[in-house]
Each structure stands twice: as structure tokens, then as C-alpha cells.
């Protein structure tokens, strides 16, 4: 990707030199492998209940112990990766496509379209994070797909704002004016000339949002608004083990750690991307 010496090539080279980003990337790679191979890797059926082996501590037979229904926590945690990864990626992809699209239209077209899009964005931004997702799930009813939709919608305004601001700053630059003078239509100017030049902050935001999406999705499941039992999902598993925490810590700890490691991996990669693309002031 990118000719030698191009900004993309430079950024990729910087990313390769970042040890943190490589650790993050490796972690995520492993997680994708775990998610894909969960049925092969898991020693037990994640849903199989065995009353006589409930709440067993971690051992060679049950690496992470068993939960109150005698289900193997390790197997359930492995299977949980299958939900947590899409929970991170899908809402962000949804928000990115819609948000960047709306931001491009608002920034390039201007006029009443801009007014409508930016006012709607202001309304969405008025909701504290989590609250908008929570409200959407509340109205649609508890379900994992509703959680992803809610989280996705709550991310849209950030992309609209970011894209809109970037479009305004590049749309009067010479290369855009040159493209226009050359007779390019608006679609070609926006997609071919403006979009590639404003993409890097969007990429950084998306990487950091994947971490947020995983955390928010897990939180909503923890609150009982997302994945419903008995499906193995990490937030849900932490919730299920909560009542047994005092004497059977492993039921909640293993899925909790799984969330943490996953999000940490995403954040390491996001930080690496931000440094490689040089957006110092983004938190």
C-alpha cells in the first residue's frame, strides 16, 4: 500500500517500528484466531451444564474453573471472543460509513443540507456517552443486535464532526480547486480528492472507538440489556459470576480479564496508529 516515500508508506513504516502497536496487533491476531477456532479449541461445550461439577476452582481439567451451572468457564470465554470482536468492529464500521458520508455531504455541499446534518449531530452529541446507546436499547428492547445498533448510532456524531471540519479545511486547497477546474464532478472531487486526504484522523478515531464499542457492548450486557443467557458473552458472564464473587472469584474474573486484554490490544494498536499518523492531541 502506498508508493515508497508516500505518506501512507511513511506511516506504515512508523507503525512497524512501534513495539506497542505490534504487541496490540499480535494480540488481536490471536483473538481473531481464537474466535475462529473456538469450537476446536474449547475442551467442553460452552452450554453444557453439569450440576455435579458446579463452581469447581481452576484445575487441569477446568483451566478457569466452572460456573454455578457446572459449565466450563474457559470454553465459555473462548466462545465469548466470537461475540466481542464483532461487537467492537460492526458498530464502528456502521458509524464510520454513515458519519463520514454525512460529514462529506455537509462539508462539501453546504447550504440547507449542512444545516440539517449539523443540527442533528448537535442533538446526538448532547447525549452523554453510553446514555444514547442505553436509551436506544431501552426503546428497542434488550438484544445484542440492538446494542450494536445503539453503540453505532452513538458514535456517528464524532465522525460527522471530524469529517466536516476536515473537509472545510481542505476544500479550498489548490489540489481541490485544480480538480474542479479540470472539470471533475462533485462525486469525483469528494471521493477521489478530498476523502483520501482527510482519512487519517478518521482511522485513528475508528481504532480508538473499537475499544469503546467493546467496552460499551460488554457494559450493556453486564446491565442485562445485551446478550441474553445462556449465550457465552464476556459482559454477561461477569454479571452471572457476580453473585458468587466472594467464594468463587474465577467465574467473573476470567471473562473480565478477557475483555481487558482485548480492549488493551485494540488501544495499543490505536495508540500506535495515532503516533504513526501524528495526531498527538487526540487522547
Amino acid at each position, binding site marked *: 500500500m502506498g508508493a515508497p516515500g508516500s505518506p501512507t508508506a511513511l506511516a506504515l513504516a512508523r507503525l512497524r517500528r512501534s513495539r506497542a502497536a505490534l504487541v496490540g496487533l499480535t494480540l488481536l491476531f490471536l483473538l481473531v484466531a481464537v474466535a475462529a477456532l473456538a469450537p476446536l479449541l474449547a475442551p467442553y461445550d460452552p452450554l453444557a451444564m453439569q450440576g455435579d461439577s458446579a463452581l469447581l476452582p481452576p484445575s487441569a481439567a477446568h483451566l478457569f474453573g466452572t460456573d454455578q451451572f457446572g459449565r466450563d468457564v474457559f470454553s465459555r470465554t473462548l466462545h465469548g471472543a466470537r461475540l466481542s470482536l464483532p461487537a467492537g468492529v460492526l458498530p464502528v464500521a456502521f458509524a464510520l460509513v454513515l458519519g463520514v458520508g454525512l460529514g462529506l455531504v455537509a462539508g462539501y455541499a453546504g447550504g440547507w443540507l449542512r444545516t440539517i446534518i449539523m443540527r442533528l449531530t448537535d442533538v446526538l452529541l448532547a447525549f452523554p456517552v453510553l*446514555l444514547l446507546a442505553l436509551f436506544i436499547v431501552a426503546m428497542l428492547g434488550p438484544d445484542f443486535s440492538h446494542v450494536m445498533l445503539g453503540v453505532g448510532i452513538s458514535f456517528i456524531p464524532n465522525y460527522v464532526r471530524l469529517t466536516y471540519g476536515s473537509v472545510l479545511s481542505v476544500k479550498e486547497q489548490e489540489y481541490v480547486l485544480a480538480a474542479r477546474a479540470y472539470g471533475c464532478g462533485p462525486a469525483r472531487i469528494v471521493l477521489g480528492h478530498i476523502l483520501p486526504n482527510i482519512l487519517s484522523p478518521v482511522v485513528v478515531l475508528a481504532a480508538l472507538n473499537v475499544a469503546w464499542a467493546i467496552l460499551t457492548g460488554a457494559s450493556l450486557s453486564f446491565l442485562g440489556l445485551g446478550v441474553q443467557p445462556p449465550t457465552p458473552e464476556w459482559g454477561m458472564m461477569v454479571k452471572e459470576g457476580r453473585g458468587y464473587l466472594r467464594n468463587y472469584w474465577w467465574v467473573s474474573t476470567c471473562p473480565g480479564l478477557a475483555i481487558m486484554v482485548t480492549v488493551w490490544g485494540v488501544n495499543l494498536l490505536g495508540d500506535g496508529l495515532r503516533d504513526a499518523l501524528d495526531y498527538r492531541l487526540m487522547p
Partner: protein
Amino acid sequence: MFRFAAQRLVQAIPVLVGVSIAVFGVLYLLPGDPVSAMLAGSGASAETIAGLRRQLGLDEPVPVQYLRFLAHALQGDLGRSFTQNRPVTALIWEQFPHTLALAAAALLIGVTLGFGLGIVAAVRHKTWIDTVSMAVTLLGISMPQFFLGLVLIFIFSYRLGWFPVTGQGGLARLVLPATVLGLGSATLIARLVRASMLDVLRQDYLVTARSKGLPEKVVILRHALRNALIPVVTVLGLQIGWLLGGAVVTEVVFARPGIGRLLVDAILAQDFPLVQGTVLFVVFIYVVVNLFVDVSYAIIDPRIRYDG
């Protein structure tokens, strides 16, 4: 100055109207009408449904219903909770002080820890102190709040017995929840303060301050920090949003009373008026706080022109 504040106030009004339309309107976007949604699965008869529709004014056109909803909301009437059969505002006012106490304590922890860590990391840039504190904050950002809450409960309540597990009242019961909420905020603030300080430390006026022979402490605290504060203040507004959202999870983990738990319980019970009222109230608080943040931003940074 006053003009700027007034201007921001005027800008906030359409946003709040938009939010109220969204919060009110979502019920009408759902398949079926709110009454069937409310009574779903309750086996209510056709008369009951028709009666409730009339009682709620649902037989009138939607815009009329909205205007009535808005007029009532402006007078502090957000309807009645189905499940508790009490005015929504009364429930909110009962629960809000608990959330306010939690958020204030968390903000205190977040600001103190966040600034401390951020300043130290920036001043000791590229030393192990910087590396370690940034690694710790990254882990902090990656830790789900509900899990951190359970870990603290396990260590400090179950094993050490230092703090009670749940409930309200007393400073001891506030410590763990406020720590959970505050640590999340501290990690974000620390990273921002560090980035902002690093930016400021490169500026010419710091070279000037040092060459005047000022002690390093004065250079950092008086000259660098004051300027580094500027971008951080805007984010404080976002922090409030984070605290209000995070309070939901924290209150549930610690079984504390508060707005967040009121909301989650209302959602689980499908108590729509209570959900709408609580959401509207929280958004209102958030918008007002951000208004204050914007205005104070203009006070701190003289480069911002009030008349813009």
C-alpha cells in the same frame, strides 16, 4: 463576555428541543404504538388498551401530543412512572443527590490523580516514569468499569474487610464506587494533560521563563500548566458526560441508589415514561454543564474572542 454566554445559551435551546423531540419521538418510530409496547405480554383487554390510550392522550395527533409533553416538561412534569405509580420528577429528585455525590467524589479523584500523573509523565518525558504511567493509564482505559468494581469489592470488601460492599450513606460506602468511576476519568485526564503539557513545554515562552532564571517548579506550575490547562478544560465537559454515563454502571455494580440505577431498573421494567424522563433530565444536566465549561473556557483563554 455576557454576550458570549448569552449566545451559547441561545444555541443550547434548539439542541434541547431536538433532544426532547428525539426522546419523545422514538416511541412512535417503534412498530405498534406505545400502549401495545407498554402492555405487551400483559394480556390486557381491548378496553384497557383503549382506556390507556385515551388517558395518555394518544388518540390525538402526534404533534399535539409532543407539544403537551414539552409544555408539561417545562413545568417540571415528566409524567408518571407505570411501575411505581409516582411522578417521574419526584423519583428523579430522590435519586439525583446520590448520583451527584458519586460524580463529585469521582471527579475529585479523577482530577487530582489525572493531573498529578499527567504532569509528572510530561515533565519526565521519555524516562521510565513516563513509560510506566502511560502503560498504567492505557490499562486503566482498557479495564471495564464493572469489572474494576468487582475486583475492588473482592479485594477491599471481601478479603480485607475495609469497606462495605453496597448501599448508600456514609463516606465509607462512597469510597469504592467513587474510586471506580474516578479512576476511569483519571486515566483519560492523565493522558490529555500529558499530551497538552508536552505541547506547551516546547513553546518559546518556556525557554524565556527558564532563561530568566525562574526555578523549575515555577516554570512548570505557573507557566506551563496554566497554558496546558486550556485544552484540558474543554474535555472536562466530556468528562462530566463520562461520569454521568459511568455512574449507571457503577451504581448497578455497587447496588447504590441513584439516577443510573433508576434508569436501568426502568428499562428492565419497560417503564417508558420513567426512561424518557430520566434520559431527558440527564441530557439537560449535561448540556447545562457543557455550557458552563464553554464559558469558563473563554475566561481562561484570552485568545478566544467573545464576540465571534
